[in-house]
């Protein structure tokens, strides 16, 4: 026989009230958990979208440009005092303090050349980094291996008759609509070689239609293109992938700027930032709603406990009369509250997770997962217990202050 025995037995006796309190706390905690998990999952989804986003920092040569117009008619744009990027700048980027946060550095030289006699945009790239960066590229064929291997954009491959539709694929797809995009499964390469600036190069693969500028471009090894264009060691742009959910992008940009003072460094994150801000707003809203629901739960605990104290006046009086200290009365009531709150917290956490999981598809674009976070479980139980304890302090104090002689006068 301990004080906890009395508390447990009392709980067993008052199952209905205990369940009522438990569900009150559980609803509060469940709402908080559902909202917090939901906003956490949205945040994670944004993080993974950022990670898939590709290059998020673009380094371009610094130049001062002047737009000239006369009477509202654009005459010409003039660039002057232009600084070229070079291979050495790639090494410079690799030296910044946050270099470990950089997942890909993809240098490029862009120019024009003749592909089978057609004037075409050519990009010299480092294929190993470029293909890691452009995760959305889908290739027919293989990634380039030798220095003379090239990748053709979809439109240019069609223009030089390097591809042809796979028989039967057109029947399966709606080829007639203007929005149809050819997939790698629908085309096959029919030409082995192509002439770039008068030199033979092997067509290693064709990039499936993206609808972007790469459809009209040829991609070759950076060194080859630098030689072809006569711009040895020069670069047009360096794309850097660093933006992930926890990356300090602004700091990385600042460090690159410091390392390459002659270059323009800019972060592409506006659209993502807008969404992140929306999620932040949702998180704040979740916190406010959770706080309100918890406050209602706390009020419910308070009124129920006050009612319980009145209802148990006689019982408390008897306990005081037979030698229970005030602290024993408080402890006995608090044990009950802690058990109820902890159970409500666990129940609320489970219910909140379930509700969050069911609601998740309505808030995300799909693919988002709701993680089982132990920290959230601990938080839920701690908040539940905190709410229960705080809202029971006054009723428990009041119970302990009951005059035993008054209480047993109910006899």
């Amino acid at each position: 026989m301990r004080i906890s025995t009395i508390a447990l037995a009392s709980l067993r006796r008052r199952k209905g009230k205990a369940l009522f309190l438990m569900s009150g706390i559980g609803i509060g905690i469940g709402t908080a958990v559902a909202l917090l998990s939901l906003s956490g999952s949205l945040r994670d989804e944004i993080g993974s979208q950022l990670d898939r986003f590709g290059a998020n920092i673009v380094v371009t040569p610094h130049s001062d440009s002047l737009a000239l117009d006369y009477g509202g008619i654009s005459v010409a744009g003039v660039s002057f005092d232009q600084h070229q990027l070079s291979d050495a700048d790639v090494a410079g980027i690799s030296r910044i303090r946050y270099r470990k946060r950089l997942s890909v550095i993809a240098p490029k030289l862009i120019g024009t050349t003749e592909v089978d006699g057609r004037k075409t945009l050519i990009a010299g790239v480092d294929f190993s980094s470029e293909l890691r960066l452009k995760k959305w590229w889908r290739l027919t064929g293989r990634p380039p291996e030798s220095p003379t291997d090239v990748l053709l954009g979809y439109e240019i491959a069609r223009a030089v008759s390097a591809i042809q539709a796979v028989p039967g694929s057109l029947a399966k797809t709606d080829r007639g609509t203007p929005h149809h995009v050819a997939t790698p499964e629908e085309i096959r390469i029919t030409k082995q070689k192509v002439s770039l600036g008068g030199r033979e190069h092997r067509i290693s693969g064709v990039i499936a239609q993206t609808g972007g500028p790469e459809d009209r471009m040829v991609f070759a090894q950076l060194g080859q293109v630098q030689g072809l264009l006569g711009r040895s060691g020069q670069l047009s742009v360096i794309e850097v992938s660093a933006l992930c959910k926890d990356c300090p992008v602004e700091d990385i940009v600042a460090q690159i700027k410091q390392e390459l003072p002659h270059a323009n460094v800019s972060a592409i994150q506006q659209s993502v930032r807008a969404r992140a801000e929306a999620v932040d707003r949702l998180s704040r809203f979740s916190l406010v709603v959770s706080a309100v629901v918890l406050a209602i739960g706390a009020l419910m605990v308070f009124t129920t406990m006050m009612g319980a104290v009145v209802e148990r006046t006689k019982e408390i009086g008897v306990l005081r009369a037979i030698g229970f200290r005030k602290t024993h009365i408080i402890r006995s009531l608090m044990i009950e509250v802690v058990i109820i709150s902890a159970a409500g917290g666990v129940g609320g956490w489970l219910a909140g997770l379930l509700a969050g999981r069911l609601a998740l598809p309505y808030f995300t674009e799909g693919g988002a997962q709701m993680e089982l976070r132990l920290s959230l479980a601990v938080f839920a139980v701690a908040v539940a217990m905190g709410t229960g304890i705080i809202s029971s302090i006054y009723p428990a104090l009041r119970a302990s202050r009951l005059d035993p002689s008054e209480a047993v006068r109910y006899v």
Partner: protein
Amino acid sequence: MAFVVVENVSKTYSDQESGIGVPVLRAVSTEIAEGEFVSLMGPSGSGKSTLLTILGAMNHPSQGRLLIDDIDVYALSDERRADFRSQYLGFVFQQHHLMPYLNAIENAMLPLATLPMSSLEKRRRGLEVLEKVGLAEKAKRLPNQLSGGEQGRLAIARALVNDPPLVLADEPTGTLDTKTGDEIMRVFLDLNRRGQTIFMVTHNPENASLAHRVLHIRDGELEFAPDSTAGTASRFSPAL
């Protein structure tokens, strides 16, 4: 040497509406010797319950002192007085006030819940007092599974479990039929024969007469001389 000394104890309650003090006890003095069985009689509103709660260390008198075992009870702090009650006093309430959610042995062990004692020892003492009142075989029953007399005996067992030097009983037979009331009084007399000091408030003159001494109270004043003696307990003598 008296075990309990009530010394000029007065109690005045303040009327909540008018704020005027209403005297309930007026300079009550009496003594109770160790092993004595004293009963207190008086009409409703005479101050019986107030005197009992003052003796029970839970109702601070407006004036006077209460000494039990030479301890000035009301000089103790509130929490120390709770400890005092736990060590010195056993209460038997009129309606027993058993915890309905605790079984018989748990109810009997209730005063031990706060004491630093092993669970085994608590259980042993619980069973011992249940045996003393003839309820050992019903240790697992809830109060509502016991008869009125058994509930009364269980309330006595709870009052005895901490081995208190003084048992205070507030009309322990007040709600019981004659037969069950007699059953309870037998237990009290048996306990007193074994040396238990008992102070009992009652309306029942027959039960009061079973005590060594009967005190009468009227309008907050004791009418009976402290050295008066009462009945001889003849009603139960053959059974004891």
